[in-house]
């Protein structure tokens, strides 16, 4: 379990993280969401013991990050932002170093390195110098280093940033695969990632925690949650007809697409379906919206800025 209590970090006059308190249970993939400069990376740097908090404290599986820092770091794997690596070393040299720093020697070292290498499919580049690798491979080397000791807690700062869609998919699969029984904290500003990957999301802006919910819960806050979108020929007529439904609160036409928002009474999707049947409209597309994270994100973080 991770417990953070009033975690605070100042850089001179700038308050980067402002009294952040939260707890994370094993089996959770927690996403830190926030605009750039929100304090996500600073929070991660404090959790991993790189930066000392200005005030407040945190515990990783019972190890205090300030008083018992080395023990806390032992149970954590960390991928810093941008996955910095010793570029002049070969992949094999680098991973051997990471394994030794984690206390593995001899045969055990070879075993741990091999497992991480197999998992991230790095076998073919082991003898290659890291700086000659592609971005995707570098990221994989960074991840290999983080999971090498099979840590119960993984902290990954923007693990998919700058990768192509296939590489993103690979990294997400890996995270999903590793998530049972573990605590995984990732930071991202890619909203779809939260939906695809996380079981819990914390929205942070200006160092403060603004929302802490499941991705589904966040979607529920969207204006579009349970709204129905249609594409059809007679937009205006359909808009006025559907706007009169008791199940509808309002209608909106945007870019040839009609969206009906629910009033909260009855089943809007059904009512819209019935209206389509009754009127005999030719509808090319109907969709029940689950909600839009980008809108929720903007609302929550903008309200704060205003």
């Amino acid at each position, binding site marked *: 379990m991770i417990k953070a209590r009033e975690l605070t970090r100042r*850089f001179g006059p700038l308050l980067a993280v402002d009294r952040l308190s939260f707890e994370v249970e094993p089996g959770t993939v927690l996403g830190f969401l926030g605009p750039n400069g929100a304090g996500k990376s600073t929070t991660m*740097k404090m959790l*991993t*013991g*790189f*930066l000392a908090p200005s005030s407040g404290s945190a515990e990783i599986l019972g190890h205090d990050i300030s008083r018992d820092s*080395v*023990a806390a*770091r*032992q149970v*954590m794997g*960390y991928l*810093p*932002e*941008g996955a*910095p*690596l*010793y*570029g*002049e*070393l*070969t992949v094999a*040299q680098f991973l051997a*170093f*990471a394994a*030794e*720093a*984690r*206390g593995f020697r001899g045969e055990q070292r070879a075993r741990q390195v091999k497992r991480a290498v197999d998992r991230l499919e790095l076998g073919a580049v082991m003898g290659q*110098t890291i700086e000659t690798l592609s971005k995707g491979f570098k990221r994989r080397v960074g991840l290999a*280093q983080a999971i090498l000791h099979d840590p119960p807690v993984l902290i990954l700062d923007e693990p998919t940033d700058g990768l192509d869609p296939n590489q993103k998919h690979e990294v997400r699969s890996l995270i999903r695969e590793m998530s049972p029984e573990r605590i995984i904290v990732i930071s991202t500003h890619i909203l779809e990632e939260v939906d695809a990957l996380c079981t819990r999301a914390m929205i942070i802006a200006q160092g403060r925690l603004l929302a802490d919910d499941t991705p589904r819960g966040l979607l529920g806050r969207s204006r579009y949650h349970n709204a129905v979108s249609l594409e059809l020929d007679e937009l205006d007529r359909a808009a006025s007809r559907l706007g009169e439904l008791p199940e509808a609160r309002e209608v909106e036409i945007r870019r040839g697409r009609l969206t009906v928002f629910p009033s909260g009474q009855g089943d809007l999707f059904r009512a819209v379906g019935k209206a389509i049947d009754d009127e005999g409209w030719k509808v090319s597309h109907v969709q029940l919206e689950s909600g839009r994270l980008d809108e929720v994100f903007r609302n929550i973080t903008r309200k704060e800025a205003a």
Partner: protein
Amino acid sequence: MSPANVLVVMRRELASYFATPVAYVFIVIFLVMSAAFSFHLGGFYEREIADLEPFFRFHPWLYLFLVPAVGMRLWAEERKYGTIELLLTLPITATEAVIGKFVAAWLFVGLALALTFPMWITVNVLGDPDNGVIVAGYIGSWLMAGGFLAISACLSAATRNQVVAFILSVVVCFGFLLSGLPIVLDLFRGWLPQALVDGIANLSFLMHFDSISRGVIDLRNLIYFVLVIGFWLLANRILLEIRKAD
């Protein structure tokens, strides 16, 4: 502090030296320059004395520029590429990292120094030198290199720019080298009490190195270099803590 962790950091650091041309360039330049100085400026042959005095005499000046070149990358590079975050979030303490890196660089300079052994063979072939004095010279030279290196390592933690680290290190090393000479002492003489000025004069690398390389292994001279190294590594450790976040 765990020696095993110091060794892990040290081995990683040494692997990096030899993975790039830096190590080879340094060694070749050091060997060429030390030989050139002893033969041309030191009058190694012309003196017709079987010792390595003309060889050791120029070490302080060689080190003044070459050792900061080795030390400048120690922390500045880690900060520039962000690997410092990787290093210091491994279960290794900052003290272990500081010592491991320093020892790696010091062994590396030691290797370059050891590769000057043909000088020692030459002087033994040509005459009958006092090999005890020569051994003392090597020990003194290596200790002095350690002092320069500790200064450079510390100042390298102050910046992410290696050029800045280099220049700062050369200036501070120059101050330590010459602190017994008027060029440095005159700066302090007007406003510091005489006891402190004498203290500064006693900090001179040159003075302590000279007495060791003449074959006088006085415990005080050894302790002096050990203290200088210890002080600057401690400062390195503290500076790292303060500056790593920037």
